[in-house]
């Protein structure tokens, strides 16, 4: 409760400093004012533009997120269980991974045009590497002794994957997914800023183009809300898929 109050006070303080400085030391033109941003945001809501553009961004982010995550989990499992193959492709993956993925955007625009597909692929590429790296490390860190014990019970490779590798990699997968949410939005929003006529990134770019600082802040606010929403969905899914962890946490809390 104390923490909650402190946080509320901090936010109010930021808003006050913002408002006061917009009226005194800086200029409303550059940093707008909380009140104007709120008005702009309400306008976005009532005109339905927020939902239209937001929906496009959600679509791109979620589709890119799911494709990238699925590919990352699959490749992570495959390479994690196959050291020879992992060594073979390691230099290639490292090279591509060292690239800022956003730098691929112009190429993707040339290949896939400026419609949703390009943003989905850009997002998927970003998410892929994060989820892949986490899954791969998760698979590699599975206890070798545990696998031997199960082999003595007669387990074949597919038993090991289904009963041990996948569930134990799951927690790393989710770590990767949590990490990916803001990056997934980078893919979608940057894609929209560069070339689009729909989406929150477009809204942002459009407002900036009209020197409408309040509109820019309103769009940023919408992006933040979306990120929080996606994060909550990932966290909820994790809790749902890994109930044993919650069980352990509860016990610690009770102790």
């Amino acid at each position, binding site marked *: 409760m104390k923490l909650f109050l402190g946080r509320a006070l901090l936010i109010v303080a930021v808003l006050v400093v913002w408002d006061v400085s917009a009226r005194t030391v800086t200029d409303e033109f550059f940093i707008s004012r909380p009140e104007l941003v709120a008005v702009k945001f309400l306008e976005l809501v009532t005109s339905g533009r927020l939902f239209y553009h937001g929906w496009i961004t959600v679509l791109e982010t979620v589709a890119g997120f799911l494709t990238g995550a699925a590919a990352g989990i699959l490749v992570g499992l495959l390479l994690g269980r196959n050291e020879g193959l992992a060594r073979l492709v390691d230099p290639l993956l490292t090279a591509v991974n060292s690239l800022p993925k956003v730098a691929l955007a112009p190429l993707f625009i040339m290949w896939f045009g400026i419609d949703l597909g390009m943003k989905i692929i850009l997002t998927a590429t970003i998410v892929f590497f994060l989820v892949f790296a986490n899954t791969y490390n998760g698979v590699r860190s599975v206890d070798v*002794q545990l696998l031997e014990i199960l082999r*003595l019970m007669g387990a074949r490779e597919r038993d090991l994957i289904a009963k041990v590798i996948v569930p134990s990699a799951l927690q790393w997968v989710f770590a990767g997914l949590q990490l990916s949410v803001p990056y997934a939005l980078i893919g979608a929003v940057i894609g929209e800023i560069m070339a689009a006529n729909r989406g929150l990134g477009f809204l942002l770019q459009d407002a900036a183009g009209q020197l409408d600082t309040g509109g820019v802040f309103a769009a940023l606010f919408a992006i933040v809300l979306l990120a929080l929403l996606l994060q909550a969905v990932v966290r909820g899914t994790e809790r749902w898929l890994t109930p044993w962890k919650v069980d352990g946490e509860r016990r610690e809390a009770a102790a």
Partner: protein
Amino acid sequence: MSGQQIIGFEGVGRSFVHRDRELVATRDITVSIHEGEIVTIVGPSGCGKTTMLNLVAGLMAPSRGTVTYRGERVAALNGRTGYMTQSDHLLPWRDVASNIAVPLEIRGVPKAERQRRVEALMDLVGLAHFETSYPAALSGGMRKRTALARLLAYDPETLLLDEPFAALDAQLRLRMQTELVRLSRRLNKTVLFVTHDLDEAVALGDRCLVFSPRPGTIVRDVTIPLPRDRDMVALRQDPEYRRLCGELWEQVAPALDATASEFPEPLPS
């Protein structure tokens, strides 16, 4: 000596390469284990006790000599053995009942039959009413019981136990020892039990193999003339038991005095 020979070691040696140097872990092990025996294995760390279990399980192959199981050379994973170590290796994402069911699932036992057998096993090891708990919510003793039930679920003839109770407190260890002897006798299991604890080695074993420091080999094969069915608690007061413990201490003391190994004992991998 109970039944027929089940495990045979003939001049078995095992070496590892460590930093381009050959390291002899064990050498010249010749021993014969009989069906239904509980054999305890003691010796300084790094002398190859765990290696011996790994060879029986087929997790590694000997560098020299032959290991046989029921007269046949152990060439691949030996599915008639079950392994349990200090760490219980339960699957944290499965509750107790479904942890115990793992080997049954692997063997394709139908669901109804699986449930029936899991319930029987939980009764057998004293885990009734814990079926839906996750390992994270269990005490150390309950986790051991779960691991033991899982081990018994696929009914391996031979149990390979590598200091399974080392992490438990004294009281709990006594209870688990009692359970282990009771179950092994009742189900006529052959048991190889590695331990650091000489008292435990005497209390549990029909025989105790004493290893020398590395390169490890069996220097003593002590028969323990205590009755097959033992009361672990009463045993503590038994003068014969205390005499045997003292004798074993004297035999092992020179070996334990030798410097501990410079390399840790390799894990089964």
